[in-house]
């Protein structure tokens, strides 16, 4: 049984106007996303800015209340949990954020940051135990415990990101949702963090939902990858399969757009026309059809179904049905 199963997740943000805050429309930030993550597996989620990656991640944690769908964690639907139960459940699912500057409270020392989750969940009864655990966490993420009493601003971006990871680890989670954890970091530091995540997974058997817009990073770290476009999942496949044989035209364009750090590499780039449409008024039919070079008439009217074209390789595209 997979650790996490998400079925047909939807999150529509109401657009409110006026005196009585009447709802005049919806931003369909996530519009029917399904995925599953096994224990110890990394699931990568890619897509362009605004396509609903973060919303998906936060909805899974119920940091924002999903509009519809099922979220089964260890077989139980967390959307049906009461607040106390949910609070207990949070120990098992954690999140790491993109912005290493905004994700740590500037008023807390690193020690306070790391001990907060222990206090919330009453993990240890004595201060000494908490202290010990905090030092241990620092070592796990490769920082010196001697710097526990410093403030976040005294650390570099990569180090802050490590602290964020340590905080997530403090409650011994089974699943970590990493929302663009390396996007704000320089390449040399980025590789440090990626390696750390890799090591932790091996040691602790963690499962990741790894969100990023950088395909090469996602591919590097993930076992399976989901490609999102405008609130929907358009393709889902094992990492290598996606690279060697992308099915959806959007995935193809995305892959071809990645700059290759080799001056002599051969490039036959698919340059997409136009921009990402607004999720408050998505195109009819296949959301990608206005930018798709292979669009047919049916794409304009009928939403393509989600189908398993190859084993373990799903796609939502009329070209394959």
């Amino acid at each position, binding site marked *: 049984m997979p650790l996490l199963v998400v079925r047909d997740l939807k999150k529509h943000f109401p657009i409110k106007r006026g005196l009585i805050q009447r709802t005049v429309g919806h931003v369909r930030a996530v519009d029917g996303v399904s995925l599953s993550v096994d224990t110890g597996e990394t699931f990568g989620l890619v897509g362009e800015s605004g396509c609903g990656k973060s919303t998906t991640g936060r909805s899974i944690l119920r940091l924002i209340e999903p509009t519809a769908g099922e979220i089964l964690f260890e077989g139980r639907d967390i959307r049906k949990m009461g607040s106390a139960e949910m609070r207990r459940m949070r120990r098992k699912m*954690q999140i790491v954020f993109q912005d290493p500057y905004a994700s740590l*409270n500037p008023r807390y020392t690193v020690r306070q940051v790391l001990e907060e989750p222990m206090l919330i969940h009453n993990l240890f009864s004595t201060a000494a135990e908490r202290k010990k655990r905090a030092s241990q966490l620092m070592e796990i993420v490769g920082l010196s415990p001697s710097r526990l009493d410093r403030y976040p601003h005294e650390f570099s971006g990569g180090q802050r990101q490590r602290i964020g990871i340590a905080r997530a680890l403090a409650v011994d989670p089974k699943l970590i949702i990493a929302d663009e954890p390396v996007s704000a970091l320089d390449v040399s530091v980025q590789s440090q963090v990626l390696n750390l995540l890799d090591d932790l997974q091996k040691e602790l058997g963690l499962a990741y939902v790894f969100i990023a817009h950088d395909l090469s990073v996602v591919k590097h770290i993930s076992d399976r990858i989901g490609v999102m476009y405008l609130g929907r999942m358009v393709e889902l496949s094992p990492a290598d399969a996606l690279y060697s044989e992308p099915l959806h035209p959007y995935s193809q364009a995305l892959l071809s757009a990645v700059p290759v750090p080799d001056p002599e590499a051969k490039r036959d780039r698919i340059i997409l026309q136009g921009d990402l449409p607004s999720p408050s008024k998505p195109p009819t039919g296949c959301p990608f059809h206005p930018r798709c070079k292979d669009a047919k008439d049916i794409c304009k009217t009928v939403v393509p179904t989600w189908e398993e074209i190859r084993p373990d390789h799903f796609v939502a595209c009329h070209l394959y049905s």
Partner: protein
Amino acid sequence: MWRLLKAYPLVFLGGILVLGLIFVAVFAPQLQHFNPNQQFQNGLSAMGGPLPPNSTFVFGTDDLGRDIFSRVLFGARVSLEVGVFSSIISLFIGTSLGIISGYFGKFVDTVIMRLTDIMLAFPLILFVVALVASLGQSITNLFIAIGVLGWAVTARVVRAQVLSVKEYEYVQAAKALGASNWRILTKIIFPNIIPPVIVLTTLSIGNNMLLESTHSYLGIGVAPPNASWGNMLAEGQQVFQYAPWLLYYPGLALLLAVLGFNLLGDGLREAFNPRRVR
């Protein structure tokens, strides 16, 4: 801290002025030359006019023959009291409403924000006058009136701050860790609204001291015979053309005190400004 002082020497000045004010207010009985409310027969000229500064009455006397020096000392108490207490009242109301409005949002937010609209649309002076007129004139009523009416700005600032803090990723992180609403409010949101609220309060203390003087000028300030700088100024303005000392001493005192709070508030604003101090 030292860097701040170097960059903002005026904060220093503000701090000194405020400390001076507090000193005078606390030690007024020790510093006084005379009972501030006593009317001296020899405090009036033969014509019945106030006396200019002289060796007995170092700041002169007012039009009832009272010692202005002693009255200025005690006026510090009253002015400070009005400034501080009314600010505390509006601080309390404004912060509570601002937090409720910002954190819980929705319907409560709409109602509270409408209410602040109403308060902000009122010409404050007229409103305080009407309130004091109906409650009766007393120093308590005055600072209640000023305080009860002055919360709207605080509420707005606090609400805006709560709204922005609420969106910080570290708040999301705390939520993801399972922190309760209460914990988030007290441990994260509240510490974050303290700096702007301190700044606002400091500024509003000065402002309320000024308001008190304006209300005294309009005849609904601190009840006689107790001196406040405001009512001394108000009395002084009647005769300023021939007895300017009635205006200048309390006027200068008020100016320095309000300036002190403004400088301090300003300095604190800079000190708390995350853009400046990193």
